[in-house]
């Protein structure tokens, strides 16, 4: 293996994931977390927002307003919509030219597709699904990730290779609000042309996406609802809660993927999380374990979800949801049960 002189690498990059002008919220979350990392980096290192796409002026401006010292902008129609091959080639070129020390990428489908593609050619160390980031005494990135169903936090390091890359699931960190933009925009040379690409996006159907990661209350549905969202929606209405789902409910097509909680979805930490007809698989628990109060509604008394809940009701979710919604939605009835 070629030896890598790690001292040649500096700066922290955040990949700004953008589709048709819409920035994935996780990008801003990472930009905010990266500002804390900068405190343990050398003074002269920069926090860089990496913007690849088309018509990125507003995106670059917002990145600076959200704390980046510099926006690196590769602006070209070849980058819209996202494809792994042109993005990968452009990224490789930028890494070779500018040698970033750390690169953070959102753990979305696009972010994971991109991270896996680019880590290999640069021989970078890539840690997936991190929930904790830090810099150790020697300046190496410490990437903490849950392993074995969240029972263990493994700290992954990459001491001899650069860049040190990590993907982070949406919702793990909090975004800060934009302030005065202060920094430089660098338009970089675009090194990819359309005729070199090996993929073509024929159709793309994307609707409005919802950000469930900021919700104060969540009603999450699982396989138990059997396609009938009615009772859970009623409960969500009564609680003024956002609707979320397990992967089972998402894969069955009942709820959109943007509302999925868990290892391959989002991390949420609401004040109240009501799991309706969700068994409590480890991949689900990983996304909601930081919730304050957890309620489980399930007709199987042995469902693991009960072990990870504060309060549980063993019963048919269709009945329980409706009854609970009525109680909560009706102040008089609530007064009666409290009395």
């Amino acid at each position, binding site marked *: 293996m070629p030896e890598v002189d790690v001292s040649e690498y500096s700066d922290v990059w955040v990949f700004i994931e953008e*589709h048709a002008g819409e920035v994935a919220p996780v990008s801003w979350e990472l930009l905010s977390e990266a500002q804390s990392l900068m405190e343990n980096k050398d003074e002269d290192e920069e926090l860089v927002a990496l913007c690849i796409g088309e018509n990125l002026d507003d995106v670059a401006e917002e990145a600076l307003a959200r704390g980046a010292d510099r926006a690196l902008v590769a602006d070209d129609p070849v980058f819209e*919509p996202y494809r792994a091959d042109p993005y990968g080639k452009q990224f490789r070129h930028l890494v070779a030219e500018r040698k970033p020390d750390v690169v953070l990428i959102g753990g979305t489908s696009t972010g994971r*597709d991109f991270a896996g593609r680019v880590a290999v050619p640069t021989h970078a160390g890539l840690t997936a699904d991190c929930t904790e980031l830090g810099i150790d005494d020697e300046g190496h990135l410490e990437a903490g990730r849950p392993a074995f169903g969240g029972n*263990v936090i493994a700290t992954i*390091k990459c001491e001899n290779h650069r860049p040190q890359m990590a993907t982070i699931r949406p919702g793990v960190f909090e975004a800060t609000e934009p302030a005065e933009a202060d920094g430089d925009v660098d338009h970089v040379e675009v090194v990819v042309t359309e005729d070199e690409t090996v993929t073509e*996006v024929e159709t793309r*159907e994307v609707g409005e996406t919802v950000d469930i990661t900021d919700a104060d209350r969540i009603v999450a549905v699982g396989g138990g609802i059997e396609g009938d969202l009615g009772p859970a929606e009623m409960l969500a209405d009564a609680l003024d809660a956002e609707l979320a789902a397990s992967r089972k409910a998402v894969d069955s097509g009942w709820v959109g993927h943007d509302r999925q909680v868990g290892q391959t979805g989002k991390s949420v930490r609401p004040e109240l999380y009501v799991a309706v007809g969700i068994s409590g698989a480890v991949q689900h628990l990983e996304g909601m374990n930081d919730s304050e109060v957890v309620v489980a509604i399930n007709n199987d008394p042995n469902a693991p979800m009960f072990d990870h809940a504060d309060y*549980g009701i063993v019963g048919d979710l269709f009945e329980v949801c409706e009854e609970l919604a009525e109680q909560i939605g009706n102040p008089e009835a609530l007064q009666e049960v409290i009395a």
Partner: protein
Amino acid sequence: MTDNWTVLVGVKQVPDEDDVSIDPDTGTLNRAEAAAILNPPDKNALEAALRLKDEVGARVIAVTMGPPTATPVLELAVALGCDDGALISDYAFAGSDTWPTSLTLARAGEYFDADVFICGEETTDSSTGQVPPGIAAHLDWAQLTYVEELEPRPEDDQLAAVRDVEGGWERVVADLPVVVAVGYGENQPRPSGLHRKIYAENEFEPIELDAEELGIDADEVGLDASPTQVGGMDTASPVEREQELLDSVDDLAATLHKQEVV
């Protein structure tokens, strides 16, 4: 139409996660005791490959990089309908992270002259999802991840796929050769046929390949070629929960009110 496609499927043996437990006294993992199973998302990869075989007459070879004890996952793949199975095994591979793993599988892709290399979304033991894009990157092939459905277009030497993207889906067409990662649960895996099962269990012998046969130098793989190292393991303090079962919805409403969450 060109010659039939050669389709590789990456399958991995993993510990059954329902069996992985933490020793309450030492805080260490009892991994060894867990039963070894086929990584569940790889069933969807196998099904996608077998559908290509049904549709365009592909030759499907399951490949696994692992110790000889991983052979049962190849037997299962053959029982399901794969034409063959290859075990890629070498002491040099010990300690490999996703970088050398994807390099090794990439070399297998070249060795078999594959047109399509199909993987699962991720493995339940390392859960990185990095191996499929890694294989594609090593080979500079097209990649299609989070795939819901494949649409072969053999007349154009292309493979189209419907992929899951945030908030919707897209149809992407890739020029061959291509690496595919099928979304977990996106198809319904078929059961194995009786005859194939008998063949797999009694007659089938995997193709065996080592580093040298794949043209891999010892220093390209294993621990030394792995950019990431595990710096430490901490037992995560489990979140304390009340775990209180309530008898009625009234009780629940009252309790939530007392807790000031409603």
